[in-house]
């Protein structure tokens, strides 16, 4: 390395503390050991920043949830704030709309996760069987899809599914659905959410899933698949008993990741409904945003935020544990 000049005087070299060098216990105990402070100095900027932009706001969310800051005035004049205990929670939890929103979000999430994982798995398998040119073609397309911002996805899908001039209606019409011409996909919120929004989200999620799962499948040794085939396993059996066990960690990882992403869906709905989604399109994310920013109900919105995190908690914890496990091996 030319960057380092050799120093003939050979200064006393301190030993690196690190997992690789297995420092002896005795050396590490003393506070005065040279360099012990270094890792703390290194993480300090990150810790300070993250406390500022994540830690403190999270604390504020919790505090707000127990206050009555439900108007801009109360925010501007902190003297008017009052602590109201769990009143905010009981108000939100006894609100029928909240439960409708939660139910809708779960339904939407399960639908989108199931479709995108199933499609992603299927196409990842197909990509293992195709000729090289077909694989290059599909990977290239997926790469471009991956790059499209979610807001643009929403905008494009609004145009694809537009009632007037929309191409999806026209394609249905071409294939015989004469009644589909000028069909308004958004009039019925259920149709708009579970068909159009779901299509947009699945479309955006597939590149990651297909390419990732396909890459995971290339880790499966050819010999194993071959051996299974020789032993008389049909394709389904060899998938279930050979491929699946090997890709399972990654499959679990991206299933929980998909759940986490889809549960907080916001941008696509926002773009598809031109910045003002009707209540029938409200998922938890949209609901807390409408409460917090459109209505300035900061405390109510904070309660919803907490509810949202709690509802995702099981999956979040499972995901983080899985990542720590995989990362620990590396």
């Amino acid at each position: 390395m030319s960057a380092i000049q050799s120093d003939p005087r050979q200064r006393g070299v301190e030993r690196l503390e690190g997992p690789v060098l297995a420092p002896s216990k005795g050396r590490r105990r003393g506070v005065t050991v040279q360099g012990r402070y270094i890792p703390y100095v290194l993480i300090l900027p990150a810790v300070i920043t993250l406390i500022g932009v994540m830690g403190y706001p999270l604390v504020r969310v919790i505090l707000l949830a127990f206050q009555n800051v439900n108007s801009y005035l109360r925010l501007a004049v902190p003297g008017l704030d009052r602590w109201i205990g769990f009143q905010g929670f009981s108000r939100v939890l006894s609100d029928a709309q909240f439960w409708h929103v939660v139910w809708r979000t779960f339904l939407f999430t399960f639908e989108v996760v199931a479709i995108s994982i199933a499609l992603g798995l299927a196409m990842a398998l197909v990509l293992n069987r195709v000729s090289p040119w077909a694989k290059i073609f599909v990977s290239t397309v997926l790469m471009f899809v991956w790059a499209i911002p979610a807001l643009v996805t929403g905008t494009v899908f609004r145009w694809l599914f537009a009632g007037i001039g929309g191409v999806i209606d026209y394609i249905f019409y071409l294939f015989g659905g004469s009644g589909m011409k000028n069909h308004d996909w958004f009039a019925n919120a259920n149709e708009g959410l579970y068909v159009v929004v779901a299509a947009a989200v699945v479309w955006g999620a597939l590149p990651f899933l297909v390419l990732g799962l396909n890459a995971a499948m290339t880790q499966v040794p050819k010999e194993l698949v071959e051996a299974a085939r020789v032993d008389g396993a049909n394709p389904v059996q060899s998938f279930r008993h050979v491929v699946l066990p090997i890709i399972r960690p990654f499959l679990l990882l991206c299933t929980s990741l998909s759940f986490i992403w889809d549960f907080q869906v916001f941008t696509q709905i926002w773009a598809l409904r031109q910045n003002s989604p009707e209540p029938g399109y409200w998922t938890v994310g949209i609901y807390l945003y409408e409460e917090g920013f459109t209505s300035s109900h900061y405390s109510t919105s904070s309660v919803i935020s907490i509810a949202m995190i709690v509802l995702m908690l099981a999956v979040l914890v499972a995901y983080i544990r899985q990542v720590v496990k995989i990362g620990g091996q590396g």
Partner: protein
Amino acid sequence: MAGFTPARAMPDRLPAAQPSRSRGRGRGRRPGESRAMTGVWNAVAVVFGVVMAFPIYWMILTTVKSNGDLLAQNPTFWPTHFDFSSYKTIFDDPDFLGNMRNTAIITIGSVLAGLAVGFLAAIAVARFRFRGRNPFIVAILIVQMVPLLSIAIPLYIVLNKAGLYDQFLGVILAYLVFTIPYVVWTLRSFIVNIPVELDEAAMVDGCTRWGAFFRIILPLSLPGLVTTGVYAWIQAWNEFVLANTLLSSNNKRTSMVWLSFYSSSPTHGADYGSQMAGALLVSLPVIVLFVIFQRKVASGLTAGAVKG
């Protein structure tokens, strides 16, 4: 995140698709696999690819259609003639270029700050075993997974109080909430792969430990810095909710917020030609970056360094 961080946060360990390697595999076709079945699978893959490509094709097609084509009773799959007036409409919009510049400022700011802060923390995590290391790693992962939406309101309140509401700096700081964890987590695996012998050799040769960080680890993790920087760039460029929440003036918005306002304005709400032109233009910087860097693999560098 599919619903939220538009770049759908790429996991660090996702191996890049490698069509070049699969070429060799295709030749050694297994005996049981018939040519006909490969044909069927090819057909399935092509149909899938075409369906996936269609929205992008339609977006681009719409931008070059004339008004006559756009208002036609039946949409056409190829324009009768190419008409670029949609782009003119976009560039005539007084806010478009300025807002694009805002996005660039905010993105560059948050990427550089995220890389600087994240690089240091990544060294600590990759090179040292210290008390609090594991809690720090878990905290990083937790921060990464907390829904941004849930802290949008307190962030707005905090920045408002600090006088950073409707300021680029406020948004840059807010974006560090997702760039730092990403950078730490991804760079960590890059740095772990740099042999610690290189640090030692440098220090034997008289380099201080901090010197080793900046003279050995920094240059060797450059490929990692580039890759993470690109990903962080994409996330910041595509981010919508925080930008929408933390900026309010017309001339301070980012491109994504601009697009959302543009396409819901009364004048352009039904003008899909210019909406698609705007949509394409605001995603172009990300598409270009994605295409250039996706396959960049940074292997062999450390091996060469040890030998040298």
